[in-house]
């Protein structure tokens, strides 16, 4: 007997679709590797080790009380919380074209699934690194856990808002993809990933502070390492960014959603 598909509420249907797409991400991201999901940890670790060896001798002391590798890791994880959703948004539609033929799969679902996937994997990595740090005797405080979570979520929302907006825009203007790649490259150097923002002279610092990532990275360090203090940052500024870019992202999607399913 053939199976009759039951009607579902729009909400339940979308939850089912996003769950299935999450599973699909898991299969295609890690299924082909022998070490599987361990790569969530290895990727940032390799970057931190390479950068730590290269820059440690010059910048190692600037992080003060916080051991430089963990100082770097904090910055690195938030950087990928921002660039991850942007880059995965760029290919969200093209990588799922075959699945958009199903009425239940709306064009926004691949975006949502990919953003959630990155939130989960990056948060898991961050938590594991904190546990390792604690185990190695680094002083980590959980008193400011809500602030730490806010830093992570705000960065992720900014990344996701941009990812949705740029993902849609790139389907219209293919050249944009190249531009986004170039813009992202210097982000590592201007986002206080490698140094504390207070170590930068004030006349340059005031420009760097326009970057919301500087605020979330430094606030995360302050929340996790109780003796680390930075004065020039706050969480209101990145919160405003999060609000604006996610609204713009949803608007861009809404105005172009018919165009996205066209082949």
């Amino acid at each position: 007997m053939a199976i009759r598909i039951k009607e579902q509420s729009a909400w339940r249907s979308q939850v089912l679709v996003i769950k299935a797409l999450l599973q699909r991400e898991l299969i295609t991201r890690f299924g082909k590797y022998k070490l599987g999901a361990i790569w969530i940890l290895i990727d940032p670790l390799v970057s931190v080790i390479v950068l730590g060896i290269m820059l440690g001798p010059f910048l190692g002391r600037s992080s003060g009380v916080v051991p430089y590798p963990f100082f770097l890791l904090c910055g690195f994880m938030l950087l990928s919380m921002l660039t991850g959703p942007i880059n995965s948004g760029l290919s969200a539609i093209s990588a799922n074209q075959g699945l958009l033929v199903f009425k239940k799969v709306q064009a926004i679902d691949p975006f949502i699934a990919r953003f959630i996937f990155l939130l989960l994997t990056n948060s898991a990595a961050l938590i594991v690194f904190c546990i390792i740090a604690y185990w190695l005797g680094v002083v980590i405080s959980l008193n400011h856990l809500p602030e730490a979570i806010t830093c992570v979520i705000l960065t992720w929302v900014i990344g996701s808002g941009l990812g949705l907006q740029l993902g849609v825009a790139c389907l219209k203007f293919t050249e944009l993809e190249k531009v986004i790649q170039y813009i992202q490259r210097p982000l590592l150097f201007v986002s206080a990933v490698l140094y504390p923002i207070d170590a930068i002279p004030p006349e340059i610092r005031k420009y760097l502070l326009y970057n919301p990532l500087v605020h979330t990275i430094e606030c995360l360090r302050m929340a996790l390492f109780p003796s680390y203090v930075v004065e020039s940052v706050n969480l209101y500024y990145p919160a405003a960014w999060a609000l604006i870019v996610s609204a713009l992202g949803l608007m861009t999607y809404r105005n172009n959603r018919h165009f996205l399913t066209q082949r």
Partner: protein
Amino acid sequence: MISIQNVTKYYPMKGGAIHYVLKDVSLEIPSDHSIGVLGPNGAGKSTLLRMIGGAESPNSGSIRTESNVSWPLGVGVGFQGSLSGRQNVLFVCQINGLSKAETKQVLNGVIDFTELGDFFDMPVKSYSSGMRARLGFGLSINFDFDYYLIDELTSVGDAIFRTKATKEFERIKQSSSLIYVAHNLKSLEDSCQSALFLRDGDVTYYENIKDGINAYQDYIKAKSKSS
């Protein structure tokens, strides 16, 4: 019943021109018999099917139905190349909220019908077009739809698949209807009672498929004479 109301669909072309697939079309598709879709290449037959199946939306107007409509079934439609046949089938079961027992039933049904063997666990991008058609058709016949949207599905299959498909068409037609796009007029005439004829942004409905085919052939003759 599928009711198409004032539907307009167009694609922007290079240089700012607009290509109309459907121009303010209103139409009701009955559910008690099968319909063949006729029209020259690029007339928008596949687009019409995609819109009825909900894969694409019209630029204006609406397509409404209370019925259970399949996804458009065609060569390589509805599968993700990087996933295996099994993973694709599981995806469809998941998004439709099937229980474990139902999922198992669908999996077994698909394995039986497609006879893909070890290929069932290989990425779909390694399939031949005939194998993809088998997978697509094998999956959809395990679901009970009121309408099956079929886009040139059997043209790529081998004789074994075509025999199987014809048998399944007969079974499906007992309780559901086909909306069938094919350039093979013989198989259209065999499987369908009525016809939709698409051309130049317009659609005409013919109660009897023979009238539709005649109109289509006249149109082709007139075109080839004028060129």
